[in-house]
């Protein structure tokens, strides 16, 4: 059998979950033996070049672009994993939900902010290339079907490692107490 192919992406996340993947430390070398990496921000592959077995998503959806990327991941990956609180629940960025409207966020950032000095025409960025900001932050499974969820902010490196090994080898997952406990 050829090696399973993994793709990863960061949507509205802080990149901490990706850093946690790197924190599996020397097991990274084992991982390279076990799998092949496709589209991922940590390499230079920018678009899907083939169908993948496992897609790992960090971050929820806070703009139209996130939704687009998430859908391409669903189309191109057999299994999708929501990695971390942001993907699983919207996470910290979802603190804006039902609290501040997009309009307020934009006005605060560009019109009312104390250090904004040079905005004579009261511009709010509006270039057509800029994605639309969504009314709230959505967890990934509200947009597409997600197969597995790994909690934590960021999920521990051990949890990520155990889950990937279980998925790749088809053996049940090892879940000792320290790994299940998350904060």
């Amino acid at each position: 059998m050829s090696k399973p192919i993994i793709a990863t992406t960061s949507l509205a996340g802080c990149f901490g979950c990706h850093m946690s993947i790197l924190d599996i430390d020397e097991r990274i070398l084992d991982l390279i033996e076990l799998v092949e990496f496709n589209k991922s921000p940590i390499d230079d592959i920018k678009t899907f070049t083939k169908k993948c077995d496992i897609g790992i998503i960090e971050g929820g959806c806070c703009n139209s672009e996130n939704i687009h990327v998430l859908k391409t991941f669903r189309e191109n990956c057999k299994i999708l994993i929501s990695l971390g609180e942001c993907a699983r629940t919207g996470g910290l960025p979802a603190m804006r939900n039902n609290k501040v409207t997009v309009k307020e966020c934009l006005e605060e950032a560009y019109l009312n902010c104390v250090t904004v000095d040079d905005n004579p025409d009261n511009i709010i960025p509006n270039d057509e290339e800029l994605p639309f900001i969504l009314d709230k932050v959505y967890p990934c499974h509200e947009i597409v079907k997600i197969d597995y969820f790994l909690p934590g902010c960021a999920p521990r490196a051990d949890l990520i490692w155990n889950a990937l090994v279980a998925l790749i080898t088809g053996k049940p997952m090892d879940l000792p107490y320290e790994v299940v406990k998350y904060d």
Partner: protein
Amino acid sequence: MKRVTIDPISRLEGHGKIEIFLNDEGNVENAYLQVPELRGFEQFSVGRHAEDLPVITQRICGVCPEAHHMASVKALDAVFNVDPPPAAKKIRELLYSAFYVTDHTTHFYALGGPDFIVGPDAPPLERNILGVIHKVGVDIGKQVIACRSRNHQVIKTLGGRGIHPTGGVPGGWSKALKEEDRVNIEKIAKENIEFALFSLKAFDDIVLKNSDYLNLVTSDIYHHKTYYMGLVDKNNQLNFYDGMVRVVAPSGKEFVKYEAKDYMNHIAERVEPWTYLKFPYLKNVGWKGFVDGEDSGVYCATPLSRLNCTDGMPTPKAQEHYQQMFETFGSKKLGKRYEPVHFRLATHWARLIELLYAAERMLELATDPEITSPDVRVIPTTIKGEGVGCVEAPRGTLTHHYKTDENGVITHANLIVGTTNNYAPISMSIKRAAEQLITKGKVNEGMLNKVEMAFRLYDPCLSCATHNLPGKMPLQIEIKNSCGESLDIIRRDI
């Protein structure tokens, strides 16, 4: 006019894309980095207890959470009007030094390094951390991993958690350092010094001894004369954790030195319609657009900037390498400083010199007799209601500014993050690189990568920059005519 988009920019932390506009002849008219994300941290922090902010704001960025954690907790010291005991400040700086070691290591080997180590024209499939390991050998790859790993352990020991630590509290630190942990950290600091020296040697062998690379470093493409910013201590020497903000002019003359809390008198921000990110500039010079020179308020806050600002390095080995760098580029002495180096690719070198400094500083702190003192907290008793906290984050000076009501609940938050400082210089570097590498509409993969190199040398962290609300930094080339109509979209496939 044609429009070329590089999307996504890989090997950087966070999200964003490069847009290049071509004129009718197919030459570069304009180029910039578009940041399509804004997350609203400043807005939803309002209404939270101030003490929550070190834990909330670090979620802006999983690459440099420690920087946000420190800036935030320092802002809280001010909000609650407390001066932490010396041991607490030293523990904070110790954790922060360990963080610098991991962060600069990650950048050199995993993010910016592949351009040099594997080569700017190598195929994309090799231009990554695995390519680096392939080129330098698995053993060295293992050393890099071990370096990250042991320093994360230090962060966990001192800060309670690896990614997103929790040790910082207003008035100090939540736990004292035990002697057995100190012994271990001392050992790790020594290993870090060896590792930093080894990395500088590798840079010397791979880049400085290779005339092609060296020509690239000193070529016009990556040369910009701007103002530079960095924190300095009372001896006007670099410090990452605390100090006054010093700005030097392109000539190397000190332009201003101010206390972080006065940042609003010195820094202002400009809004452009095509990006969610704002452009900070020196208020007292003024915004003159995306241009170099003494008359333009554009400044830069990077490892290279910090070395351009400091009166020498505070630790001996780093000082040797600092001198070597400025002498290699022919900078003359200016008092205890040198004339600034304006070659932006030298930032990679400067980053390694800082790595060495961080390791040496870590050893100083780990062997400081006071570091294991149990006295690590002053309990706050008053609420002053406003505070600014500032640290030197790896990607630039980071400022957190909070206002609270009489109960210590946040009423206002303003953050100026490391990468944002460099937003205008990044856009300028991209434009310069694009102008020289794209003519008559001819764009190829190697060229695009060199444009990306212009961008990656700043090690931009767009997670940070976009703390503000939407998210994605993903390469595609979009070609637009002078009326802005899309003529063609070329996806950059590998």
